């Protein structure tokens, strides 16, 4: 058992350390700003831990390597940033369709296209609504602090294997590049037989296993889709969010990731001025905390969604509360670094109605 001590690290390093603590055995990456610390750190640390590190020839290749390794029932991961994530979408769809538990990390940056190398939340649609083809869902976890980046990376592996589904950790350049204290911890009581009842091993004294997503026979693809949808429904049990001063709030600010954390500071400041504002910070973007938001809407509260994009999660907020209320929206423009002061005016404006 490891003795907890505080380390002062970037989010990228926290994610890497979390993955190692979770027992990741294989990592496949490719350089792209702002996540290069992840492959650089793991190129040293993973072989030292007895694992395999490969710098792939592209993000496409890395995602497909992840597919192969995870198909063996082994804990494996890849990381990238927005343009590289676009390249991975085919492999992600295959992993979802073949039920392969790969972990993918997106340290998102500004877009569309080459964008910039700073933070943004412009990949919400890509992550939650499916950047790849077909009807599938990933579990999407959005850390708001460097400690959370460590913790949620470990959770990502557990959930991936629990549901035999790919899981996405959605961070951004702020989380990736910011240094904060982290208390590292190692999960205990991991199942040593995890993944061994379905993973590729070489068929000895048993029928061969086939990992596939092609279903051509009559009714087969329909059956597979129903099976996947049932799984995504079961995933609702994993929904997670932070509620901050929501009980007596008149206005609920909804924000995720680093923006959620910055908005929390603004809410705290405005509360000190007597303003009745609160925050809901979704931690799982899929499953989305729709029930929590609807519950608050039924209490007559109003909503302001703040995102570092041109309006993506706000659609899910509106969908959740549509029978009762609507949500205002404030865009922190991609390319412009946010501060707590930036959110004061929009929140006050929304509070006044």
């Amino acid at each position, binding site marked *: 058992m490891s003795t907890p001590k505080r380390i002062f690290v970037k989010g990228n390093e926290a994610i890497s350390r979390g993955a190692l603590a979770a027992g990741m055995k294989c990592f496949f990456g490719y350089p792209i700003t702002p996540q290069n610390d992840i492959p650089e750190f793991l190129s040293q640390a993973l072989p030292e831990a007895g694992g395999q590190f*490969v710098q792939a020839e592209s993000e*496409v*290749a890395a995602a497909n*390597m992840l*597919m*192969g*390794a995870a198909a063996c029932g082994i804990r*494996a991961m890849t990381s990238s940033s927005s343009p590289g994530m676009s390249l991975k979408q085919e492999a992600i769809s295959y992993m979802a369709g073949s039920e392969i538990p790969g972990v993918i990390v997106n340290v998102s940056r500004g877009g569309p296209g080459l964008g910039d190398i700073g933070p943004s939340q412009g990949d919400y649609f890509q992550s939650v609504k499916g950047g790849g083809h077909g009807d599938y869902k990933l579990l999407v976890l959005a850390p708001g602090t460097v400690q959370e980046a460590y913790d949620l990376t470990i959770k990502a592996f557990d959930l991936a294997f629990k549901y035999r589904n790919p899981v996405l950790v959605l961070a951004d350049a702020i989380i990736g590049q910011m240094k904060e204290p982290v208390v590292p911890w190692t999960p205990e009581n991991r199942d040593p037989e995890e993944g061994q009842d379905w993973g*590729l*091993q070489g068929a000895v004294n048993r029928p061969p296993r086939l990992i596939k997503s092609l279903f051509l026979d009559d009714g087969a693809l329909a059956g597979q889709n129903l099976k996947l949808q049932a799984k995504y429904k079961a995933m609702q049990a994993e929904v997670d969010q932070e509620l901050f001063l929501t009980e007596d709030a008149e206005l609920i600010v909804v924000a995720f990731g680093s923006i959620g954390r910055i908005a929390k500071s603004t809410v705290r400041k405005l509360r000190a001025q007597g303003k009745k504002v609160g925050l809901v910070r979704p931690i799982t973007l899929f499953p989305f905390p729709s029930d929590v938001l609807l519950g608050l809407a039924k209490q007559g509260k109003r909503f302001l969604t703040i995102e570092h994009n041109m309006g993506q999660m706000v659609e899910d907020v509106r969908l959740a509360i549509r029978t009762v209320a609507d949500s205002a929206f404030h865009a922190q423009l991609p390319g412009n670094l946010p501060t707590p002061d930036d959110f004061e005016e929009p929140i006050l404006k929304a509070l006044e109605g």
Partner: protein
Amino acid sequence: MTQEIRVTNYPEVLTDRPTHYCPGCHHGTAHRLVAEAITDLGLVDKSILIGSIGCSVFIYNYLSLDAIESPHGRAPAVATGVKRARPDKIVFTYQGDGDLASIGMAEIMHCANRGENITTIFVNNTVYGMTGGQMAPTTLVGQKTTTCPGGRCRENEGMPIRMTEIIASLGGVAYAERVAVNNVKNIMKAKKAVTKAFEYQTREIGFSFVEILATCPTNWHMTPLQANKRVETEMIPYFPLGNFKDVLAKEEK
């Protein structure tokens, strides 16, 4: 006293079912050679098959092995992941010319260059079969396909790619050979090459590669016999048979 013995022995790993391949298609022969190689070497129990996209996407129906379907062109990357996760297993890809030499060019080059201890069986029939006969990177000059209806010409489409020579030039490659299965003599040589390729994987000395020249009677608009003849008259002159790299042979000299 005489006793009847069976001359033909099909390996158990080759499943007993009719194939979906067209009459005269060489995929069946290639599948059988792979089945024989891994059986002769005693590798069946530890083999993992990485399928690809093309007519042979259903190879897992004919080889009774743990297997995974991979996206078009990405089999060498998927194989890399599998081998890194399970280094003690025999991991191989089976790919056609569109899959390997077009969309998958980066993946095969880098997998070979890294010297991944895997084996690739590359079936080259100079055309995209499954999708109905489009031009492939290995389509010969003058050959008519649905996307070069006037015949491939150098000025517009470039020259056909000789993959075995390119793979052989990469540092991580232990073995690279081109074979054909258009007559019995070539089939015997092909079997030796495929067996050697898998045997080299057990030695963990790098990447092994066998290109098998094959027919596609349907998309060449030929009878099986005519198509088989074309391998000899048109394909072998451009894609010469033989060994292009063998690191162990070099050491022995």
